[in-house]
């Protein structure tokens, strides 16, 4: 399926323009209205499938559009007039409808839009997965002509499953004129696959040489199936070698993928614990409300998206600073009202912040309802970066890995090289003395707690892209966060980084082998045993400075 077109159609305004373009340039449709009739009535899936076939065979761009709209849930029947329309949702929950056909001689242009109607007036043309898959296959034949090479490539791969003579003809023609190397490669694969499926033994073996370099899972499955069915030892031998080579590559990809999964899990751990590394690690507040600060950040994202529904793509850039401010302000408030009275009594901060966390959770339940809220993923963060047919990395995770490192660096810089950082460290080590050195301890405390909370808020923005935005968000991360900070060595930012990434990777390498549950248990046992070896965490501060 044409990934790009589909994605573009998701954005409201963008899709509208594209839509107009398509509509305006569309030729007359040559399918009989009898063929389309099942669309208008309640008809069986088989009948509907026949419509797809008819439209595919007709082959015009107009049919393509009908199929595309059908696939994207934009093909409706207007109940009253019993006619087929394309419909587009407007922001006020009405539908603008368009005429998908136009008769010869009719003037093009505005007349295409048929007006705006209520949802009740329309009935969506039904679709299920069978149809979807049929339509997608059908659309692939159009995509072969697309101007964008990426689209062509995916169309070629999509056509592998149904390599009939017609498609093959198209592919051969394409191969003759194609200039893009990547497309040529894909075409060669398709042709080789055909050769492999249809040819003689020697041709099959010949085709194998080409196919060996492919990472396409379908090709691999064809090879495997043929191997199971063949009686020819030479072919079997050749396939076995080819499969071994493919699987060898697969293994590398799996390792690469696992590393990435690990880092990405690690970056989530890092984000969720780095704020705690400040409030707990540096300030010594056993901050049970840390998770709720993340929750505030996530809800900030939600609020931004609901206030500016048209800015989904930009929403995160607004949400990040805002979440920092919101959670940071909450942190400052908590510090001034409660924590301030508890310095020197670290254990009691546990009690108070636990109380605060209960209050915050319930407050969110009361204000936003106990349900999860929907936070949309911007287009640029959806989908994945396809490195090859077998290896692709999801964009959202990639961005989050980068983002977590960025946050880490900034924080490290602040703590190490700025006066504010120095003041924070001085105050947390000896409050009275810091004051005697002229450092306004109250302000530094409040700002430090605010900084830690603010970072938690920023982490919440990132988490909103991965998981539930609900009142329990914080609870789900708090235990892991403490685990990471302590494992890394309290008060050591590098420790937090290494602990987060390390635990992430270890977990992800254990998971395929032991299963998610046991992997998690093993990681916990590992932490317990590791602490025996290094009782002050991974990057323990040493020396009398600590003991003294």
């Amino acid at each position, binding site marked *: 399926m044409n990934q790009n077109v589909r994605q573009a159609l998701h954005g409201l305004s963008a899709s509208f323009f594209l839509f107009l373009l398509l509509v305006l340039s569309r030729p007359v449709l040559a399918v009989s209205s009898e063929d389309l009739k099942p669309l208008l009535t309640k008809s069986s899936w088989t009948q509907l499938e026949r419509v797809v076939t008819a439209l595919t065979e007709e082959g015009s761009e107009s049919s393509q559009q009908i199929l595309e709209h059908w696939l994207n849930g934009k093909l409706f029947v207007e109940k009253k007039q019993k006619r087929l329309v394309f419909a587009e949702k407007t922001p006020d929950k009405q539908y603008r409808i368009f005429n998908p056909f136009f008769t010869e001689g009719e003037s093009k242009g505005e007349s295409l839009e048929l007006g705006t109607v209520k949802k009740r007036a329309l009935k969506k043309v039904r679709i299920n997965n069978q149809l979807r898959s049929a339509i997608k296959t059908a659309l692939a034949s159009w995509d072969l002509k697309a101007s964008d090479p990426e689209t062509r490539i995916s169309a070629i791969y999509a056509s592998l499953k149904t390599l009939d003579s017609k498609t093959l003809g198209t592919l051969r023609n394409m191969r003759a004129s194609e200039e893009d190397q990547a497309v040529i490669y894909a075409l060669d694969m398709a042709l080789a696959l055909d050769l492999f499926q249809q040819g003689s033994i020697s041709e099959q073996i010949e085709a194998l040489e080409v196919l060996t370099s492919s990472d396409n899972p379908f090709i691999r499955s064809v090879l495997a199936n043929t191997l199971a069915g063949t009686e020819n030892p030479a072919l079997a031998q050749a396939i076995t070698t080819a499969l071994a080579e493919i699987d060898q590559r697969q293994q590398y990809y799996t390792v690469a993928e696992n590393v990435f999964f690990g880092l990405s899990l690690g970056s989530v751990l890092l984000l969720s614990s780095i704020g705690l590394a400040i409030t707990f690690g540096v300030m010594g507040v056993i901050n049970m409300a840390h998770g709720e600060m993340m929750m505030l950040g996530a809800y900030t994202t939600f609020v931004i998206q609901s206030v500016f529904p048209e800015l989904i793509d930009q929403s995160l850039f607004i949400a990040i600073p805002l979440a920092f401010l919101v959670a940071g302000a909450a942190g400052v408030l908590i510090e001034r009202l409660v924590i301030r009275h508890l310095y020197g009594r670290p254990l009691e901060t546990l009690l108070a912040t636990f109380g605060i966390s209960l209050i915050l959770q319930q407050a969110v339940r009361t204000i936003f309802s106990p349900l999860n809220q929907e936070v949309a993923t911007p287009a640029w963060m959806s989908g994945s970066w396809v490195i090859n047919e077998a290896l692709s990395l999801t964009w959202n995770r990639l961005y989050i890995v980068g983002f977590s490192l960025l946050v880490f660096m900034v924080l490290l810089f602040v703590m190490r090289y700025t*006066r504010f950082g*120095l*003041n924070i*460290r*001085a105050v947390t*080590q*000896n409050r*009275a*003395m*810091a*004051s*005697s*050195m*002229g*450092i*306004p*301890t*109250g302000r530094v405390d409040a700002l430090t707690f605010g900084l830690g909370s603010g970072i938690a808020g920023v982490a919440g923005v990132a988490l909103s892209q991965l998981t539930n935005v609900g009142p329990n968000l914080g609870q789900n991360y708090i235990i892991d966060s403490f685990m990471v900070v302590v494992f890394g060595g309290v*008060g050591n930012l590098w420790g937090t980084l290494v602990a987060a990434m390390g635990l992430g990777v270890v977990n992800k390498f254990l998971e395929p082998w032991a299963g998610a549950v046991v992997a998690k248990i093993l990681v916990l046992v590992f932490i317990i045993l590791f602490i025996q070896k290094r009782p002050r965490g991974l990057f323990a*501060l040493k*020396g*009398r*400075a*600590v003991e*003294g």
Partner: protein
Amino acid sequence: MLEVQGIDVFYGASQALKSVTIEARKGKVTSVMGRNGVGKTTLMNAVAGRVTPASGKILWQGIDIASSPSHSRARNGIAYVPQGRQIFPLLTVQENLETGFACLPRSKRRIDPEIFDLFPVLQQMRHRRGGDLSGGQQQQLAIARALVTQPELLILDEPTEGIQPSIIKDIQSVIGLLRDRGEMAILLVEQFFEFARDLADTFVVLDRGEVALEGTGNAMDEAAVRRLMTV
């Protein structure tokens, strides 16, 4: 410069200072003496802003600062070398010194090389963590750190405790030097009698939270003071 007028300090129900009055002048050393537990540290803490007197005034350059927080006193030129050093253990020596910058305007934020002349060992250990230094080294760091703030009043609480003799002498001469420059007033708490006597322009002996004896340095009656300092 500094006038402490009749302050009372309580710890809970017990009174640690009873109507104590002392003063410190620019270019002079005021020595505060007395046995263990008579309230010397408490008095210094009151001046530095760590405890709040229940009554009485603390006039600093004519203004009553009895209720202002310690960081604003520090910014107004009162520097404190507390008993027990109170180094920031995890900051490096350099960073410990830099904490003093909080008192200074941006343009003056540098460490006077003279400080390293006074305490060469600090130069050597500049990048070691304060907490790792030996006791005597920490004491030197504490004094140096106070000097970074370029104070007008320097409070030293038992600066010789745990210090090797040669450095005691150094400290003694540093204090003398600072006094002779005439830029700051110095309040010195000391149990080491000779040290206190040699430096004192004026002296105060506390007993059970009260001023028991006071006078100018050269008029100090050693026998009387020593009596007050034994049990």
